[in-house]
């Protein structure tokens, strides 16, 4: 096979699989910067994915995207109510939220589409070619011929960076995460700050789930997020709680996951399950290398 075609396809696939991770990790960055570790992000993505499927079959892909945004924010809102409002343990609350999301999405999905789930055709986002930029050899088609959600994820990054590091709101948010008691002492409404960051983060996670449905798979299946939310949490650690680092870490994951397409194209007879394991193993390795040299927000998880 022509190596240029191969590399282009590989990069395009990497960008495609990066997108949902990028959304989720950006959202988790926001909430962790405010001191909240949201393990429910896995369930939030799942809720977003189902909402996207239902919304898109009713109102088209744009409706699906908005439905997913709302579903993500609502799910994260429930988490915020329990973990921030009632001060329940964040780790266990997050696990419970994910468990509830698996149950709810499974039930609603079967109720809506029947046990087989057959005949579910969802309008999806077609690849959007950006004139000019898409003509750049190799990189062009990989980066600038993607479905709309990819551009949205890329646009979200600088916005989150700007809010976190260039606004008073972001300063208050980071102060809340680093030293909640001190932030409260200077008049920051820390619980509101945390709830806000968590809900906004949930919106991002919902969009991540929507991307899976509307720009990749084209349908909803039960437990389709398959741990991407948890990967996103690891990516935030690897990206050192900074939007740009997080983007880089997410893309490395995209590359690792896209390896399976590359090897399939090359006709290698390596069991595909090895490639399914790869991102998780890589995360563990990277965490071992990264932790110790990075510092989490001071009040994370309190």
């Amino acid at each position, binding site marked *: 096979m022509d190596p240029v075609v191969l590399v282009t396809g590989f990069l395009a696939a990497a960008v495609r699989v990066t997108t949902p991770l990028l959304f989720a990790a950006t959202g988790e960055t926001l909430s962790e910067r405010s001191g909240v570790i949201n393990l429910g992000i896995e369930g939030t993505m799942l809720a977003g994915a189902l909402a996207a499927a239902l919304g898109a079959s009713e109102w088209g892909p744009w409706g699906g995207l908005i439905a997913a945004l709302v579903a993500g924010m609502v799910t994260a809102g429930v988490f915020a109510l329990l973990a921030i409002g009632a001060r329940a343990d964040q780790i266990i609350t997050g696990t419970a939220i994910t468990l*509830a999301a698996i*149950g709810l999405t*499974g*039930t609603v999905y079967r109720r809506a589409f029947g046990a087989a789930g057959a005949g579910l055709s969802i309008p999806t986002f077609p690849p959007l070619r950006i004139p000019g930029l898409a003509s750049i050899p190799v990189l062009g088609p990989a980066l600038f011929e993607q479905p709309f959600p990819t551009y949205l994820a890329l646009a979200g990054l600088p916005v989150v960076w700007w809010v976190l590091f260039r606004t008073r709101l972001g300063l208050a948010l980071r102060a809340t995460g680093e030293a909640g008691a001190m932030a409260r002492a200077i008049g920051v409404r820390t619980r509101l700050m945390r709830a806000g960051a968590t809900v906004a983060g949930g919106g991002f996670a919902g969009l991540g789930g929507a991307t899976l449905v509307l720009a990749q798979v084209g349908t909803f299946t039960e437990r389709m997020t*398959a741990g991407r939310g948890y990967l996103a949490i690891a990516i935030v650690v690897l990206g050192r709680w900074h939007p740009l680092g997080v983007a880089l870490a997410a893309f490395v994951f995209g590359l690792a996951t896209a390896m399976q397409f590359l090897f399939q194209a090359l006709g290698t007879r390596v069991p595909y399950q090895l490639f*399914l394991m790869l991102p998780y193993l890589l*995360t*563990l390795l990277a965490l071992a290398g990264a932790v110790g040299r990075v510092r989490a927000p001071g009040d994370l998880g309190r």
Partner: protein
Amino acid sequence: MIRIGWAVLAGAAGLAILALGLEAAGYDSSSALTALWNGAFGSWYAFTSATLVRSVPLILIGLGIAIAFRAGVFNIGAEGQFYAGAIAATWVGLHVAGRPAALAIAMVLSASVLAGAAWVAVPVWLKLRFGVIEVISTLLLNFVAESLVSLLVQGPLQEPTGIYPQSDAIAEAARLPLLAAGRLHAGFLLACAGALVLWYLFSRTVWGFRLRAVGLGPRAAEVSGQIDSPRMGAVALLCSGCLAGLAGGVEVSGVSYALFQNLSPGYGFTGIAVALLGGLHPLGVLLSGIFMGALEAGAGAMQRDAGVPSVAVYVVEAVIIMVVLLATTPKGGWIPVRVIRRIRPAAPKAHR
């Protein structure tokens, strides 16, 4: 007494939410709940062969998670450790034909215990050596375990004809004896014995006291009791992995007799609900394990008889977890509040 009251309330709240949800979704909730009850307790056969059989892995995993939570560490990877145990049990079980049953079963179960411990040893090592928090590492290894099972049942461990993605049936000698007519196997006795042993360890031994002390306040335990908190946490995680691995071994050797994908319908996560509902008390875990076993067995009947998807019980489990958690949060009673402090990498904070 108050704890038992909360636990009962949590169970009732979960079922009430289920009924309301079913009603809202347009199902006939009374016939669904009747199907659930009949599937779990409707007959002696249903109780022993569905409920109790289902409760065995839940009790074993729940006990393991209770050890970890008591020591203030999180094990969210019981699912992966269960699979590791199941893989080891299958592999050994395929190679012990012709040996005396007692020996074969002992070999199968010890292999599963070791495999569970080995699977959790990775997060333990990562935590002690590099400070990687066990929440993430145990979680991620669940997915590796699932892929590994998929790889094995379509590769090295696949049944000889190569048609079905599952292993061959394990040797007769490696199968746990059945207790009565029906499907209830000796693993249930093992789970009961495990609960009793753990109760003794927790409440009557120095080891149990140290474990609980570390969970309630690692610094205090270190300063006033000269207890090595990180080491205690590591030991608790390893014990937790052993029990989850054993659950996998017992499931293969007592119920499925073979390895296949989705052998566990999320036991690792249900085990968290079991441990919390049982108040992290071994005997409480025994009871809550039977309750959750009934719930899941009943959910299967509910899907068959009333057409309600069985995944709906996950919502019930989540509600139970949250009610128990909220009921105990203000005083930090059941869950050591200080667990959370460990989440952060061990960068010492400068005093200004």
